[in-house]
């Protein structure tokens, strides 16, 4: 029996990676889907999109051809007007913008003109009334009715051409009138602008214009497809091993769990990188082919060398994406017992990656320092910047969405942030994965527990953390759909939102999980006696009101009158509602209803779930912060999030301090009722001064609010001296 050898570390990680890769490359179906499919998919995608692009180009060419305008004239003054337009067409100087290249004018009788228009043989028909020219050259206004062809495809350019011709005619008439009055022509032309320089023209220019947007879309698609490359090997790496019964023999190897997981990550990462390379190569080759179909001159601007450089730059910036995607897929599938279960858990990951990658395309985010640190969004943004700077079409436009380009100094910083954040996130995810795999309750989870989801669980006093997270996820989904279901009116919309997004998921889950409502929602008297409860509720009301005023003062000072249109519309809706409705009804709708629903949701169910039945101080802090973050996110408007987050912290602390949800409901209601009562009591002049653009609140209001906070806190402290024993956090 031999002596022990040094184990673990990189040799062990590489041994596991080699073993997993050997297994992967022998699964031909997985190999085909992961690596060969992209090579076939992009040409197919390009073929279908080329059809669209060619159709668009054809349409552009057709429009370019539609610089020709076919007029028909009828009526007694038709011929002189046609001659006048013909003379204008021959004179090339001083024609207004949009003047067609070629104009044909036919003078026919009205029946023939009608026929020509009906057959589509002419673009526009003008029946010129008698005395038109004398009116045009005189001092009156000539009314002309232009009938456009209804047979030809609708084309706004025809109308623009007709208007240009009519403008030219009117300019000519103005000059004649000025000459007759002995006035100089410059009287009506105070300014003349001439452009110099080369402006791209035609369909090639149009294609160049849309190229950055197409590139950005392809980058997002590439991010998604690169991440999908991690799916199969990640499923196979842990869940597959559990299913095949080979995980135990791996876990008894003399290596720390982190080394085992890192070895598996290296295998998944290698496959993901290969998928990325396959996708990038396919995109480059497809682009080379595609560029030949694009209008003349464009293909010469983007050579094979440029495309190869683009491919390499994308590979460089997406290596971090491949690492994060590999680690994320491993983490998500680590708890799964079978490949099928792992596949199901990866479905939301696809949506998450697509949503995050899409953030890079949101107007206005480019160039932000935090963006490269956001997984997937940062990788797409850095790739966009790199391609824009070095990839051969940086000269076309500043950046993809028109924002200022990143300078050569900013790009390395963005790349460094992206790489470092990818490494940190990957390490974090692998650490979490190692903990999940080492968790023996997950590792040896029996089949009876795996299928338990469809049975109502036995009665319990408090919800679990998963149940808390589940309700938040359901609430977000319901909130999203409630936006579409809600009626246009503000109050009915609020009722639908509160009932569909807040109460419905809460009641459904609480019923299904058979949770004790009193414990889960902390429905009990604060302070243990009626006098102390009264003090606690009064203190909570003062705290809520004071918080609103202080929050508003801070927010107004921070915004300095600059808020999003959505926030302004929200504020206007509220002011309008308060002015239109009875105060009691507004307080009920804006203060009481949200306070009851949202407090039961966040400070009731979610906080109970996160805190647990035996809370420690650290867990309580994490729980309060987590539910406050969810509460803030629920309010959707970024401007409201800091205030709602602080409000969530205070209300969460209030529930833990008093052991009851009632003070939180009262504080929340008072917080929301304060602006209602202030606006209802204010005169129109005071209301104008209290608009959202106001730089700050009066000092007396802030002083009064601080007083409310102090007195409220004192009353709560008094009530807490005999708070519920369960309120104390150990």
């Amino acid at each position: 029996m031999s002596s022990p050898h040094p184990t673990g570390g990189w040799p062990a990680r590489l041994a596991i990676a080699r073993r997993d890769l050997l297994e992967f490359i022998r699964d031909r179906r997985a190999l085909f889907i992961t690596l060969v499919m992209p090579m076939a998919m992009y040409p197919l995608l390009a073929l279908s999109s080329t059809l669209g692009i060619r159709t668009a180009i054809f349409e552009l060419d057709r429009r370019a051809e539609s610089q020709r305008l076919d007029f028909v004239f009828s009526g007694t003054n038709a011929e002189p007007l046609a001659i006048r337009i013909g003379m204008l067409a021959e004179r090339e100087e001083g024609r207004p913008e949009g003047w067609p290249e070629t104009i044909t004018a036919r003078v026919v009788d009205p029946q023939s003109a009608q026929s020509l228009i009906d057959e589509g043989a002419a673009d526009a028909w003008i029946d010129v009334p008698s005395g038109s020219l004398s009116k045009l050259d005189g001092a009156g206004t000539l009314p002309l009715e232009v009938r456009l062809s209804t047979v030809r495809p609708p084309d706004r350019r025809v109308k623009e051409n007709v208007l240009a011709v009519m403008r030219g005619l009117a300019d000519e008439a103005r000059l004649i009138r000025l000459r007759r009055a002995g006035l100089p022509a410059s009287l009506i032309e105070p300014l003349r602008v001439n452009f110099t320089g080369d402006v791209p023209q035609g369909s090639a220019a149009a294609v160049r214009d849309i190229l950055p947007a197409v590139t950005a879309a392809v980058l997002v698609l590439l991010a998604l497809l690169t991440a999908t490359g991690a799916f199969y090997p990640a499923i196979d790496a842990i869940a597959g091993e559990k299913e095949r019964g080979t995980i135990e023999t791996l876990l008894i190897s003399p290596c720390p769990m982190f080394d085992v997981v890192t070895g598996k990550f290296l295998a998944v990462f290698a496959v993901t990188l290969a998928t990325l390379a396959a996708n990038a190569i396919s995109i480059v080759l497809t682009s080379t082919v595609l560029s030949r179909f694009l209008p003349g001159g464009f293909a010469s601007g983007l050579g094979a060398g440029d495309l190869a450089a683009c491919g390499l730059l994308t590979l460089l910036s997406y290596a971090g994406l491949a690492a994060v995607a590999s680690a994320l897929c491993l983490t998500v599938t680590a708890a799964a017992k079978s490949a099928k279960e792992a596949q199901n858990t990866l479905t939301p990951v696809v949506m998450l990656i697509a949503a995050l990658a899409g953030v890079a395309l949101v107007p206005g985010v480019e160039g932000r320092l935090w963006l490269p640190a956001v997984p997937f969004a940062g990788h797409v943004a850095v790739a966009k910047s790199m391609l824009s700077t070095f990839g051969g079409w940086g000269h076309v436009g500043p950046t993809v969405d028109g924002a200022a380009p990143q300078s050569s100094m900013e790009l390395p910083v963005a790349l460094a942030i992206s790489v470092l954040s990818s490494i940190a996130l990957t390490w974090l995810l692998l650490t979490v994965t190692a903990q999940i795999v080492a968790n023996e309750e997950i590792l040896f989870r029996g089949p009876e527990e795996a299928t338990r989801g469809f049975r109502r669980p036995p009665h319990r006093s408090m919800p679990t953390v998963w149940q808390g997270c589940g309700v938040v996820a359901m609430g977000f989904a319901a909130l999203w759909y409630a936006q579409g279901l809600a009626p246009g009116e503000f109050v009915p919309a609020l009722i639908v939102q509160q009932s569909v997004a807040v109460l419905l998921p809460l009641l459904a889950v609480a019923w299904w999980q058979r949770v004790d409502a009193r414990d889960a929602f902390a429905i009990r008297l604060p302070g243990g006696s009626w006098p102390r409860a009264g003090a606690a509720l009064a203190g909570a009301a003062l705290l809520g009101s004071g918080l609103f005023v202080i929050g508003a003062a801070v927010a107004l000072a921070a915004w300095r009158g600059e808020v999003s249109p959505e926030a302004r519309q929200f504020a206007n809706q509220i002011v309008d509602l308060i002015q239109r409705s009875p105060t009691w009804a507004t307080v009920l709708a804006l203060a009481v209803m949200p306070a009851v629903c949202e407090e039961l949701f966040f400070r009731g169910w979610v906080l109970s779930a996160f805190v647990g039945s035996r809370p420690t101080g650290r867990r309580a802090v994490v729980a309060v912060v987590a539910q406050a973050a969810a509460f803030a996110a629920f309010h959707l408007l970024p401007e409201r999030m800091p205030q709602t987050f602080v409000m969530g912290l205070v209300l969460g602390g209030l529930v833990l301090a008093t052991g009851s949800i009632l003070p939180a409901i009262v504080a929340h209601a008072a917080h929301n009722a304060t602006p209602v009562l202030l606006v209802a009591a204010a005169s129109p002049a005071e209301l104008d001064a209290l608009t959202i653009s106001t730089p700050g609140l009066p000092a007396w209001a802030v002083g009064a609010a601080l007083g409310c906070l102090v007195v409220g806190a004192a009353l709560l402290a008094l009530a807490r001296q005999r708070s519920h024993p369960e309120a104390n956090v150990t």
Partner: protein
Amino acid sequence: MIEVRDLVKEYRAGGGKTVRAVDGVSFHVADGEMVGLLGGNGAGKTTTMRIVATLLTPTSGMARVAGHDVRTDPIGVRRSLGYVSATTGVADRLSPREVLDSSGRLHGIERRLLADRIASLTASLDLGSFLDRPCGRLSSGQRQRVSLARALVHDPPALVLDEPTSTLDVVGARDLFAMLQSLRAEGRTILVSTHRLHEIEYRCDRFVIIDAGRIVAAGSRAELVADRSGGLEEAFFATIGGGAA
């Protein structure tokens, strides 16, 4: 070599209940000894073996292999132990050579030494005819031999085998126990569990009978069947309180 004392393992079951799968188990396996861990399904054999193999952490009590504690020195335990599970645990798409090579690398064995070790195991466990064939195409007996070779690749002094014959036919089971006998003759310590008593009745030095997480009897065959008519199977049923089949 293997020492288990007051071992307790509790699981959290559904509905917040706690299930005690192993309840104060104590036994030892001396150097060069082969001990059979007997019990019905759900008796706690696999849980005990997984604790010894460091796959599970005990709720309380102690387990040691070659002086290494499963809690404080799991890496030391894994270096001293070869583990064979009922499912064989060999990857279908790898060949026996690759399985052994991979396992040897994980144990940090130097490449040339590993090649020698694989050659030695191939000869002693008769793997030569299928050494480079994918494990997915091997018979159950061949797969179990690969699994045993994998457990031995780092030359451990102790072996733990959890129901190694559950997927084998009579011939395969006999061959496997013949191999275990020769391994014991080499001086290795072996702890093997099974519920097919006739297979090991005359092959183990001692037996530990476990039922509902507790040891109900322990000793040599002679000690267990003493004062009773019949063999080990009758003694087993008598100790766990069930009727003979």
